[in-house]
């Protein structure tokens, strides 16, 4: 029994983004996003009976969210695997709805890390076998992966910089993006080094932000006003937690999560019109394009060069401007879903991808640790 086409995303929203100012809590941002998503969906809060969340702030995330919003779910899932958690929640919500365990699922997240202190709030414990060497978490771990990819495949800093330049190109078309000034490859190469080979501009933003997505059965969605966006397929995989335990730093578990998602959806990378790939660091986009089958392993550097993933290029990637230029509130996966849904509804204005029928959403968590892939489609893609 497949989940393909069984559930619909009927409402998505962002909270206030960027730098919201002192005094707001992550739950306030969750409240904002939830209000906006419910209004878009045309649903009353009382209809939400499934609650999904993850957080670096709250030890029992769905309990805190349920309390703040005044929701008493009959299905509660706080799957916690880093930034990919919300894409995992999408898969889990679909299974729960199909099993009749809930009818209207709210997936939500918020972080005030920027206004709170200007640094990543992670909640991750240090690994005792890595801590003595003082790697900077998480950037040094991604830097190690980049160094291996450069060694095995000749990937260059210039090619990684192209990822940042492409993301900025999309951000310039998004009024809600945090960074919209011109950015060149030279700008990236000359920016401050953080953990080689990754410079500041190879790293995601540290911003406040949050989002909400409301999912219900295809039957229920027929009564609602929003243009339906269907879940076609999803899959998750994880092989390690700490970078020193990753079997091959040039191959992530996205190879598995992607295969699972494509199989459920009955589509392949050639059918994807918009790819939202979790770009916490420039190396991520290169790796996930390879692991999700958009190009061969080792060819990712060439693939992202020459404007191929920029506005007007062959493949629309991270059309919001991504974690690199639009927003990255610690855990970013929910905002991938929000943008994908809007692209499929045709709501993206200047950055709208023409004939967007199928979107791929790929979440990453930890240090290339968890990988979750989802494929969303407009009704005509069913």
């Amino acid at each position, binding site marked *: 029994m497949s989940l393909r086409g069984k559930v619909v995303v009927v409402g998505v929203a962002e909270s206030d983004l960027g730098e919201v100012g002192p005094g707001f809590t992550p739950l306030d941002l969750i409240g904002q996003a939830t209000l906006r998503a419910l209004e878009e969906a045309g649903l009353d809060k009382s209809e939400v009976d499934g609650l999904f969340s993850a957080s670096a702030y709250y030890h029992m995330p769905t309990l805190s969210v349920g309390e703040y919003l005044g929701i008493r779910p009959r299905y509660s899932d706080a799957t916690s695997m880093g930034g990919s958690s919300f894409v995992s929640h999408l898969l889990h919500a679909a299974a729960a709805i199909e099993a009749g365990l809930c009818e209207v699922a709210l997936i939500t997240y918020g972080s005030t890390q920027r206004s709170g202190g200007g640094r990543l709030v992670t909640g991750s414990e240090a690994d*005792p*076998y*890595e801590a003595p*060497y*003082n*790697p*900077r978490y998480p950037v*040094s771990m991604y*830097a*190690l*992966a980049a*160094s*291996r990819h*450069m*060694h095995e495949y000749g990937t260059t800093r210039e090619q990684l910089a192209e990822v940042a330049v492409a993301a900025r190109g999309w951000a310039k078309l998004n009024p809600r993006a945090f960074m919209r000034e011109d950015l060149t490859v030279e700008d990236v190469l000359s920016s*401050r*080094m*953080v*953990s*080689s*080979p*990754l410079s500041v501009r190879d790293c995601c933003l540290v911003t406040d932000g949050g989002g909400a997505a409301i999912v219900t059965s295809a039957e229920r969605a027929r009564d609602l006003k929003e243009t339906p966006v269907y879940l076609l397929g999803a899959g998750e995989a994880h092989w390690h937690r700490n*970078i*020193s*335990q990753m079997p091959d*730093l040039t191959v992530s578990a996205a190879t598995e999560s992607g295969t699972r998602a494509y199989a459920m959806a009955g589509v392949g990378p050639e059918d994807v019109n918009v790819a939202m790939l979790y770009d916490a660091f420039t190396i991520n986009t290169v790796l996930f394009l390879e692991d999700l089958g958009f190009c061969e392993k080792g060819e990712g550097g060439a693939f992202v060069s020459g404007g191929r993933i920029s506005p007007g290029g062959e493949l629309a990637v991270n059309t919001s401007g991504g974690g690199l230029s639009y927003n990255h509130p610690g855990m970013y996966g929910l905002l991938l879903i929000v943008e994908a849904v809007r692209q499929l509804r045709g709501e993206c204005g200047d950055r709208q991808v023409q004939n967007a029928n199928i979107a791929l959403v790929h979440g990453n968590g930890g240090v290339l640790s968890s990988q979750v892939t989802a494929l969303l489609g407009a009704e005509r893609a069913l």
Partner: protein
Amino acid sequence: MNPEAGEPPAGIYRRHLESGRLGFQRCAGCGAAVFYPRVICPVCGGNDLAWETSSGRGVVYATTAVYRREGDPYNVVLVDLEEGFRMMSCVEGVPAEEVEVGGG
């Protein structure tokens, strides 16, 4: 049976370090070298893990130079030890940016 089986794996590892040795485990069931220390083989699921001492010789698998506000960057590497396991470490005596993947 391993005479040290009753002790916590991390404690045995620490005792090796205190006598100047890099200890690691070898699974008696499948032969895998296991690091970090634990009670179960992550390859075959076996529970008979014996302790060995590494030569300390290996190849740099990945490297990064960590930059801080002041001072020179410092090095962090992943090393593949010749006995067949990987761990994080750092290379001393070489400028952080000059450590090379593939170096021994």
